[in-house]
Structures are given as C-alpha cells and as structure tokens.
C-alpha cells in the first residue's frame, strides 16, 4: 500500500548486525562479562579501556614508528597498565569504589587525549589519523571493492577490520570459556559470590580480582584496536561515557555470566537500532509520520527511546537476559 522499502530495511538491519560496531561492542562486552559476570567487578568505565587500547596502538605507530604487531602489543600493554592503575588502589576496598574510580578514569583518559597540553602526542581533538598505513598493507582486501555474501556486504577498507574483529571475538570467547571452566574460573566466581569465604579458604582474592580486571580490560583494549583499524582514525570524543552503558546494555541483553551472551547481545542491539532507525526514516519520508510530530533528523534520537523500552520489557519478562539462567537469578532473592 505504501512505498516503505522493507527489503532495504531488512538488508540494512542484517548488514549492521554483523558490522564493525557490532564486533567492537561484542568484544567490549566480553571484557565487561569477565569483570562483572564472572568476577563481580563493577566497571563503569569500560570505554576507558577501549580508548587506552586504541591510543596505545595508534601512538606506537605515530610516535615510535613500530610495526603493526608491536603496536597491538603496546595497546595491550597500555590496557594492562590502566587496569593496574585502577585496580591496585581500589580492589582492596568495597566494590563501589572501583565503580566510582572507573567512571572517572575513563573520562580522564578522554580529556587527557584531547587536552592541548598533550597536543604533540595525541593531536588533541583532531585525533590520530596516520597510523593506519601498516594495517592497510596487511589487508588482503581491495579497499574500494565490496566484500561479503547476501545482505552482508562491506567495503574492503572496513572488511579487514570486521574480519579481525569477529576472529578476535571468537578467540576471546574460547579463552573465556576455557578459563571459566577451570579452577581459576571457580575461584573468580567464588569471589563474586562471597569474597570473605574465598579468602577464608586460602584464596588471595585481591590478586584474582586484579587478574580479572586486567583480562577484561585487555579485551576492552582489543575492542578499541579493532575500532581504530576499522575507522582508520582515533578520535578522543568517540570515547564518551555513554558508550560504556551501551556495552552494559549489550551484556545484560545477552545475559550476564554466559560465554556467548555478549555476541548475541551485540548483534541484537545493532539489529534493533538499525531497524528502528531505518523504519522511522522510511515512515517519515512516506508521510506516515507527519513532520509536525517528527522529522528524519529526530528519528536518530527516538531510536534510543525504543531500545530503552525494549530493554525495559526484557527486564520485565526475561530479567536474566537471553542466555541467563532464571534459576540463578532466583538465588539472589533468597
């Protein structure tokens, strides 16, 4: 009856659900899952780890002209140092302190990166743009061609990063899966449940929490590196605080403390956002929504309302997330 192009909307929805952002959000949420889902650490500054990883890699190339692999190691190193800085003073304290410190530290990273004092290093608000060369050389894909199958078509310039992103995500999932079925994971989960009980049984809770913070932080850093390679730029103002809460949303959507949940959460999150945005635009364009109510530029703001409502509904009808266990959830209430 109308000209809404359902094929296009569906196409976009599918394509975006596996795009660069989906991989980056999935990775960052895997890191959060290690922090919160398994070790019970409240990290409200995951975006700080993402930024630190990206900048570590970028600066290695722009400042010290390292090769791409050394640059990635630098990014990991930056994330480890950031985790130590946050963890050493706070992990002996109650859980809330880590939450406060992480949210502040993530903002500090962003403000430092865009500060004029560090202009010679981080290029301020302009960001790092000259690091992508060595990665382009590694890419087997032609930047100007389209790659992929069916609805999943991506430009060659980004396709390399998308592939890397999902491969790295799968590898980290494997790592997390193995760790969490090992005695190491048992200790970490025990600390999540009751730190004092673990200590009384001879486990150095502080050291395990620090290890978990580092591990999840490094995974966040990897997300930042994938993002930087895909976008070919590192802009400080990309790493704003709300991003952390999207990572949380992705994690909660999938179900906390389950290996696969960040990936599924991220795919659903991006599919939902893309679907709502494209449908909204089409409806405005077709006059189904009068411009007196909203125009196309306002659709982008409405999309987050809809996602918010969807999340609220999820919390009402499936509080444990998609993969979570209702039984475990019920144990909290006892």
């Amino acid at each position, binding site marked *: 009856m109308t000209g809404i192009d359902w094929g296009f909307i569906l196409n976009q929805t599918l394509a975006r659900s596996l795009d660069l952002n989906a991989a980056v959000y999935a990775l960052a949420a895997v890191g959060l899952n290690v922090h919160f889902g398994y070790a019970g650490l409240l990290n409200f500054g995951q975006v700080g780890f993402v930024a630190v990883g990206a900048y570590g890699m970028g600066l290695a190339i722009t400042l010290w002209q390292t090769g791409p692999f050394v640059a990635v190691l630098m990014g990991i190193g930056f994330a480890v140092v950031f985790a130590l800085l946050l963890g050493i003073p706070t992990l002996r304290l109650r859980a809330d302190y880590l939450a406060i410190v992480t949210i502040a530290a993530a903002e500090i990273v962003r403000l430092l990166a865009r500060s004029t004092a560090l202009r010679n290093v981080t290029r301020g608000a302009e960001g790092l743009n000259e690091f992508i060369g060595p990665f382009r050389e590694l890419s087997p894909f032609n930047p100007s061609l389209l790659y992929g199958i069916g609805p999943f078509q991506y430009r060659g310039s980004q396709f390399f990063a998308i592939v890397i992103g999902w491969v790295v995500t799968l590898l980290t999932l494997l*790592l997390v899966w*193995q760790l969490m079925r090992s005695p190491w994971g048992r200790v970490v989960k025990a600390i999540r449940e009751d730190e004092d009980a673990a*200590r009384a049984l*001879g486990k150095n809770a502080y050291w395990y929490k620090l290890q978990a913070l580092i591990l999840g932080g490094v995974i966040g850093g990897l997300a930042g590196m994938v993002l930087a390679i895909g976008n070919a730029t590192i802009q400080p103002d990309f790493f704003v605080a709300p991003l952390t809460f999207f990572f949380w949303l992705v994690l909660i959507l999938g179900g906390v403390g389950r290996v696969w949940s960040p990936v599924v959460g991220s795919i659903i999150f991006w599919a939902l956002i893309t679907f709502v945005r494209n449908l909204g635009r089409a409806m405005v364009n077709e006059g189904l929504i009068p411009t007196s109510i909203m125009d196309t530029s306002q659709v982008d703001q409405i999309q987050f309302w809809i996602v918010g409502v969807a999340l609220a509904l999820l919390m009402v009808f499936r509080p444990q997330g998609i993969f979570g266990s209702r039984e*475990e959830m019920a144990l909290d209430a006892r």
Partner: protein
Amino acid sequence: MPAETATRADVLADVPHEPGAPKPDPIVVVDGMRKAFGGLIAVDVEHLEIQRGVITALIGPNGAGKTTFFNLLTGFDSPDTGHAVFDGQAIDGYRPYQLAGLGMVRTFQLTKSLTKLSVIENMKLGAKGQRGERFLPSLFTPLWRRQEEEIEERAMELLRRFQLDHMRDEYAGTLSGGQRKLLEMARALMVEPKLIMLDEPMAGVNPALTQSLLEHVKRLPAEEGATVVFVEHDMDVVRDISDWVVVMAEGKIIAEGPHSSIGQNQAVIDAYLGAHHDAPLDPEQEDEWLREDRLELGDVPPLREEP
C-alpha cells in the same frame, strides 16, 4: 567414643583453671592482643593458649568480643597491638589466605555458601595448591585434569560423610540453612586444616540437624586430626562437645576450664548476670516482688496457647 573423649580431656587434667593457663601442647598462643574501635576496647587478651587436638569452646555474653577475637586470629581484622603464634610460627600481619595456607580455617556466623556455585564446586574450591588456579596453567586442561579428579574424589568422600552427596550438582543456594552449615564445614575440611574455627556453628540450624552437626564436630579431632575452636551460645552444646571452655567478657578472658568448672565460677556468673544479681533478698520481699510481677503478666494474654 567415651574412651576417646576421656583421653582428650585427660591432656588438660593438670592445667589450672585460670585465665591464661599454660597448656602442654598449644597450637595457638596469643600475647597482649588488643583491639579498640574508637573508645570501645573490643578485645584485650593478655595471654591465651589453645591446646592442640581438643575442642575448645569460646563463650561469653553478647558483645564480649568473641567474633572480633576470631577475626583478629584469622587475619580478617588486625589488632592494634599483640602477637599470635600458630603452630610454632609467628603470624602477626598474616592475611586470611596465608593463614588458610598454614592450616587455619574458619567458618562464619552467617553462613557463606557460594550460592551460585554447585555443592561440588563449593567443595572443590577448598582444596589447596591447585595448579589450575593459576592463570596460565588454567588454560591447558591436561595440566590440571588429574589433580581435579583427585580433588573431586576427596570432595565426594566428605559429601557422603556429611550426607550431602545427593545434592552434589545442586546450586548451594538451594540448600536449607542447616545443610549450608554442613556444607561450609565440609568445605573447610577440604583445606585439610590443622585448626578449624567455627563461629556459632549451630546458629540457625533446626534441631533435627543440630545433633548430626554436633556429631561431625565431635569427630573432627579424631578423624581429621584437627583442633577445633568454636563460638557458641547454647550451653547444652558447649557441655556436650567441648573439652575446654574459655570465657570472654568485655574483651578479656575471665575464666578457663572444663565446662564443669565454669558453671560455678564467680567471674562468669557475674559477667552473665551482673555483679549484683545475687544481692540478698528477704524471702517475703521476694514473694511480694513475684506477685507484682505475675499481676502485671496477667494483664496480657498468655504467650502460648496449648491446642
């Protein structure tokens, strides 16, 4: 069983019944341990020795500092001054996990079962020296699989003894209060402790389970070679299982001895009932007083109505 209890008590036969009495073979020696919270002196123990291989009860009125003393000994809190020696080794400033490594394990007044881990995982957590608990080895299952199987076997043995084996794969959070106490005790035994410190092991346990829990505690010295120290309010329990009783009040050790000697100890009676509780009362006065009391009580409906 009685013979064995007798031998345990015999070890302490020559020990004088007074605070700070030296023991023939102490596993814990505490000297000048003091802890103040602001103006309140919570613990002020001049000297205490705990005999190896027996069951020692730590009793005292509410607020006597028993749990704080437990926390100081187990490293969960640090004393302002004082020294402690465990099994011949000075343990000042040791952290809880280090003390557990030495063989001193505690349980908590409020049970700390790890609700979202299964019963068997709770048990396996207790085992010491697990290779798979270190980050890098944990990544390679062959490095820890054998050890894990051994640990599981030992855990199952203990679970059978504590009659929890049918619950092995249930979440610990689904257990009843008494079963959680059993699990916590069994889990502590996984550490292979030399000294096990139980903070109110019977609190919140239904009477049906109390007896079996008591039996388990009683058998610890013989079967596990563990020394037991426990905090308890129920005097029947103390009488039933303790070889030696240490009484605390207002942070100090005020009496020591076998439970039979504690009941008549003036300092203990004073601590529990107040120093003037036995001020002489004229029999007539007493009758009067009781009558008034009863009259007042008569105004309210009886608390318990028999069906």
